[in-house]
């Protein structure tokens, strides 16, 4: 195969002139990371609420939480993203919808992708939270109630601190997933890493260099997150439980 390797392509000024192609990659990295982190915050908060609701002794609340999880788990991420980006602005009250459509395109893409990824991942986080709470011995909840705590207090001071420590390993893999899933935002044009890979192919005609560089960046994100989470896992591990010492 006669392919001309040219790694110096990254140092060349880009077609827009104000940046190098390496700069494009770093911009992509910046958007990938900020999209993933902000969606992760949404996922953790909503996932905790929904996961807790699935375990409370109220049929309506737990039924509602189950419906939430099933809805977000059984529709492909790409379809959800397109619904947030293309459908929702049409269905909102006209004033709100227009305000969205008139905002900066980058902001529209980022906002849709963030909400989409956040809710999509929250359903998965909720499942982990639920299984974490259910894995605790029943006596813990009973003991909390017997001590005179109200149910919300039992959750806050007894169940959740334990549950979080137990589910940290599966949460790590959801956290890694959110970085990978953020690549889906390329389909609505957000200039994250995989979009930049495609742009570099279009503008530099050096597809292999571009793809290899972006793949390496994704692997680096993965390795970094894994390293940090391992450190955290070692710190908060519960002795006597799975994964504990």
């Amino acid at each position, binding site marked *: *195969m006669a392919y001309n390797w040219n790694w110096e392509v990254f140092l060349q000024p880009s077609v827009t002139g104000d940046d190098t192609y390496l700069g494009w990659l770093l911009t992509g990295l910046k958007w990938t990371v900020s999209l993933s982190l902000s969606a992760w915050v949404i996922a953790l908060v909503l996932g905790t609420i929904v996961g807790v609701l699935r375990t409370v002794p109220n049929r309506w609340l737990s039924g509602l939480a189950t419906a939430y999880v*099933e*809805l977000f*788990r*059984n*529709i*492909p*991420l*790409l*379809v*959800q993203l*397109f*619904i947030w980006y*293309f*459908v929702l602005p*049409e*269905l909102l009250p*006209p004033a709100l919808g227009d305000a969205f459509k008139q905002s900066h395109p980058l902001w529209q893409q980022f906002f849709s992708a963030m909400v989409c990824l956040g809710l999509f991942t929250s359903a998965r986080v909720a499942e982990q939270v639920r299984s974490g709470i259910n894995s605790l011995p029943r006596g813990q909840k009973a003991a909390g109630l017997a001590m005179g705590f109200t149910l919300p207090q039992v959750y806050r001071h007894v169940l959740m601190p334990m549950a979080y420590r137990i589910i940290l390993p599966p949460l790590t893999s959801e956290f*890694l997933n959110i*970085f*990978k*899933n*953020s*690549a*889906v935002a*390329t*389909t609505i044009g957000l200039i994250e890493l*995989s979009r930049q*890979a*495609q742009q570099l*192919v279009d503008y530099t005609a050096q*597809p*292999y260099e571009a*793809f290899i560089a*972006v*793949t390496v960046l*994704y*692997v680096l994100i*993965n*390795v970094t997150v894994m390293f940090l989470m391992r450190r955290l896992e070692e710190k908060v591990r519960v002795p006597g439980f799975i994964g504990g010492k």
Partner: protein
Amino acid sequence: MYEFDWSSIPGAIPLLANGLLITLEVTLTAIVVGIVWGTILAIARLGSNPVLSRLAAAYVNLFRSVPLVMVILWFYLIVPQGLKAIFGNDIGDIRLTSALVAFALFEAAYYSEIIRAGIQSVSKGQIAAGLALGFTPGQTMRLVVLPQAFRNMTPLLLTQAIILFQDTSLVYVIGLSDFFGTAYKVGDRDGRLVELLLFAGAVYFVICFSASLLVKRLQARFAK
């Protein structure tokens, strides 16, 4: 308020059905090849040969740390080059071929992790018993360990298949008209994107939700 107009869907049913066939083709190929190749990877990884074991681990870790979108784009870049090298320049539409290869090789990495856990869930005594009966290690794996492992992991393999079915919608990035791609194109053509996207979402939901209920029932039966 937005006025819904669902009239472009009935006429598009044949197109959408065609798209669904492509979706199913990609899904089924990836399941079959993924499980076969994934089993080989899992056995290599657990085996005693350090080189094979490292190679299998590297393969699995690489595929698991890269987004599926990038994998699809990678194979859309590589597969045509490979086909051109073999068949010359007359290779036709390679989108489906590259999607099939990408999904099969990508899913193998995920399946191999499930299968590896499944093999490890079979107690060591079974292997010892197989060897003591005079089976070769290969026969022990094939006749004793794998049947039990697959029985244990069937629910997980099926759940992964449902996830895979949803993930195939990502072939959108190379412009392949699977079910979702077709729905998007029809919606775009008729200016009815809202209806078509909601319809596509509903269809995926019904299929995946029913499938996951079936898996749950199967799981309950296995647990007995």
